[in-house]
């Protein structure tokens, strides 16, 4: 009986040690992944400022996960850091030129910075060169509205609703 208990105790000690050592090794050899996971954790809880503190160092590492840039961009937008958000999306578009979502968000960020014409040109280019995405057109209509170009905005909204070609 005593021997059985001893064996059980050693097994537990062994597994706890293995778990501890692997966790330590993970922190030592894969610090980027630790940062990423912590950043993700805060991002999912909508704790964007905290998420930024974990995502930002990852941009210095060669950490090839587009989610980092996507989520960092969103975190910057939500916390109002539009300058940083625009550079993140510009970087993301360089990596993934086909990423329409990134283009739309970049246009949105430009609009937030008051660069309406740049934002509008970007969205028009997206609509001309890529597939006619509804979301891009809605954002075009919104940004046209924000810039005071109401008639053009109305036209775009009508197109979104299929009432105008």
């Amino acid at each position, binding site marked *: 009986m005593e021997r059985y208990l001893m064996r059980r105790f050693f097994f537990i000690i062994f597994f706890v040690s293995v778990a501890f050592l692997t966790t330590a090794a993970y922190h030592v050899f894969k610090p980027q992944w630790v940062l990423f996971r912590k950043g993700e954790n805060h991002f999912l809880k909508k704790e964007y400022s905290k998420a930024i503190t974990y995502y930002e160092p990852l941009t210095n590492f060669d950490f090839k996960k587009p989610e980092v840039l996507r989520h960092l961009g*969103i975190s910057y937008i939500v916390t109002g850091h539009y300058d940083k958000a625009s550079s993140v999306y510009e970087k993301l578009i360089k990596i993934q030129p086909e990423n329409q979502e990134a283009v739309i*968000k970049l246009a*949105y960020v430009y609009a937030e910075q008051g660069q309406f014409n740049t934002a509008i040109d970007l969205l028009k280019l997206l609509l001309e060169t890529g597939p006619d995405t509804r979301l891009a057109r809605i954002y075009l*209509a919104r940004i046209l509205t924000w810039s005071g170009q109401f008639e053009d905005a109305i036209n775009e*909204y009508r197109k979104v609703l299929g009432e105008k070609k």
Partner: protein
Amino acid sequence: MKLCIDKPLRIGFAAALLIFTLIISDVSLINGSENAVNPAPQKMFSSMRTKGSIPETGNITGEIPDWMARWELAKVLSYVKKYDESVAEYRKVIQEKPAIHKVRIELANVLFWWGKPDEALIELKRVPNDAIDEKTKVLLADFYISQKNYKKAEPLYTGYLEKHPEDDRVRLRLAEMLSWLKRYDESLAEYKTILKSRPDDIQVRRKYAFVLSWAGRYPEAIKELRKTLK
């Protein structure tokens, strides 16, 4: 004897000044006190930029339903004063989403701006009282004023001013209304509050002077009018 001549002279002088000031200058820092005014495009930017539409967590990649796009279209149409089209779009949205009170309230606002207060009132009656926002209540009060229904307008103004004591534009409307009801002391108190925050507003001071004269307080009226002529 001197006093007997002085008094009618003073009254005459005050009356002349009042008429004179009625004609000249309409310089006021508070404007738009008479009618319901379409706030667009000045206020458009903030009202359209709702944080809900911001790409928070992938929202931007998600669908924006037709009714929402139509709602935005209805707003923009109202900004360019295409009220008939705007109202038509609002009605389509309401047909699809009757439970969103905000749409109906906006429709009521557009109807007010369009000069159809009766229809606006019908729409507002369909909205629960606690769902009506403060600014719409003021609009409603303006409408009651236009109908000379001061009894209904007063609690709307006072309720609003309790929450927004800094809104001199609404306070001015209340002050004017009270003066029309010959409740001069209350009206003058409201004017005094406005003038405390806007001592240089000539037009408000002149209106204050009128009320003083209506209340028979001519010397004070003259004093206030003189201040506006410096």
